[in-house]
């Protein structure tokens, strides 16, 4: 299910003294079944974009197309529920949105809202709780008794449980310790490989380089660039101009190039190690 934005503008509190322009003339296509990273400085419009994808916000002008759905400023809230089932959003610090008496009931909330029967909702919830690494003895505990990391997983299961075709993630790994972060990102990787689209908002360029296929760079409410991961990170001076750092392996490969080594910019450590070995082999021959 691709997402297409055509001439989209978005202004918060439009027609009031507090009006604030968040997006200007955004044209964008997000491809199907890929991991697309949305990156950009704080306040560049990433979070606004996510909320346009499932109709939580409607464009002030222009249109958003998600599959057969067309969202414009005139779109009514009524028919949006079925869209929201297709486009799931895990917001920042999703553990702050848990509310039900038990872990299981909280995860069932989404599926039940989207028309699953109680049994279906329960089996979906159980399935996804296990996938995110929550053990069965916690299912009937209050979500508020869990550790912060476990609460995060429960909240994520709460979105995965209705298996949205497109999964949007806003800084899903922020504040987790390194091992917890890796586990969570690998869950999303699996989900994408099962044939879903994943959209990731992140500040961590190493995560983006390791995880994403496509990158959309936002700057001051505009799309500054959209390209595949290799091309995006091949121009560090451009990234710096847009307040973004490059992944460490890129900056390291550039340092080697400055010193005369013939190495192409590598987007992660493994690629970099391969490049270095290749280069040494070439010299030795």
């Amino acid at each position, binding site marked *: 299910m691709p997402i297409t934005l055509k001439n989209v503008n978005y202004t918060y509190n439009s027609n009031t003294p507090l009006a604030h322009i968040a997006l200007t003339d955004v044209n964008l296509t997000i491809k199907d079944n890929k991991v697309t990273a949305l990156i950009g*400085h*704080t*306040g560049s419009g990433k979070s606004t974009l996510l909320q346009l994808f499932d109709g939580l916000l409607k464009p002030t002008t222009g249109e958003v197309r998600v599959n057969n759905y067309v969202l414009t400023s005139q779109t009514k809230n009524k028919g949006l529920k079925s869209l929201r089932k297709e486009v799931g959003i895990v917001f920042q610090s999703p553990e702050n949105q848990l509310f039900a008496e038990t872990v299981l009931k909280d995860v069932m909330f989404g599926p039940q809202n989207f028309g699953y029967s109680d049994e279906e909702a329960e089996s979906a919830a159980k399935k996804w709780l296990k996938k995110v690494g929550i053990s069965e003895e916690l299912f009937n505990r209050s979500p508020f008794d869990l*550790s*912060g*990391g476990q609460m995060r997983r429960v909240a994520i299961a709460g979105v995965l449980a209705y298996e949205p075709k497109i999964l949007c993630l806003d800084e899903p790994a*922020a*504040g*987790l*310790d*390194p*091992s*917890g972060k*890796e586990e969570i990102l690998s869950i999303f990787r699996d989900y994408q490989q099962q044939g879903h689209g994943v959209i990731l908002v992140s*500040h*961590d360029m190493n995560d983006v380089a390791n995880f994403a296929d496509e990158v959309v760079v936002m700057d001051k409410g505009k799309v500054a660039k959209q390209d595949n991961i290799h091309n995006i990170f091949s121009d560090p001076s451009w990234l710096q101009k847009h*307040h973004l*750092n490059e992944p*460490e*392996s890129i900056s*390291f490969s550039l*340092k*080697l190039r400055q*010193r*005369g*080594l013939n190495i192409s910019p590598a987007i992660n*450590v*493994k690629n*970099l*190690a*391969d490049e*270095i*070995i290749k280069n*040494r082999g070439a010299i030795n021959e």
Partner: protein
Amino acid sequence: MSKEIISVKNVSFTYRDSKKKVLNNISFTVNKGEWVSIVGHNGSGKSTLTKLLNGLLIADDPKNSAIYIDQLLMSENNVWKIRDKIGIVFQNPDNQFVGATVEDDVAFGLENRNVTRSQMLKIVPEVLKEVDMLPYKKTEPQNLSGGQKQRVAIAGILVVNPEIIILDEATSMLDPEGRNEILSIIRQLQKEKDITVLSITHNIEEINKSDRVLVLNRGNLLKIGTPDEIFAEKTLIEEAGLELPFVYQLKEELKRRGLQIPGSIKTEEELVDYLCQ
């Protein structure tokens, strides 16, 4: 020999409604002017440790344990004196902003110590300048970014001239730019005022730049040592749930591909030099 500013001896801690020890017989010392990173899984007892250091929590078994801050023994009599020596910047920028505006928030610590208004009018702009927030004096918290709020939090603890600054995951909710700003401000303070820094953090580059690293796991102190010493121990790294700094990761990957890099090479620059020989 530099002066010992923190000394923790045989400290354990158990929360009242649980039986499990959050901290188990911890001992270590920190010298004045050091930057010590405290690392470990979420829930390994790191935040409990900071609360013990400024007397927000009291250690189990006070007879056989002791915490000294700048030669003062933690006790009911000394706790307020000790709090004058320690400033803590907490994780959530919003949940520590007490004042209605930036200047009000900075003055909070002074008001608590009954400092005269004329003195406050002198000190508040001074510390705001140090964190580069003077132009935002009258701004309300909802109009500040997370990084700006944390800078105000730093100013708020600078008003009482602390000897020790504790960063309790103070940069974990910030974007990279905000994080770098905060860290460079703290580094400057450490240098100029010889402030001791304890930083609870997951940020690997920050850990790598600190003088020493204290590794906690399930309430036990696994090791305290320089970053090199810590990163050389693979099992320790895994137990503590840490990742390796980039240079160590790359060395590891190169080794896997048959290229052994000498242990003496620890920084990016050294590795670049080595590879370009």
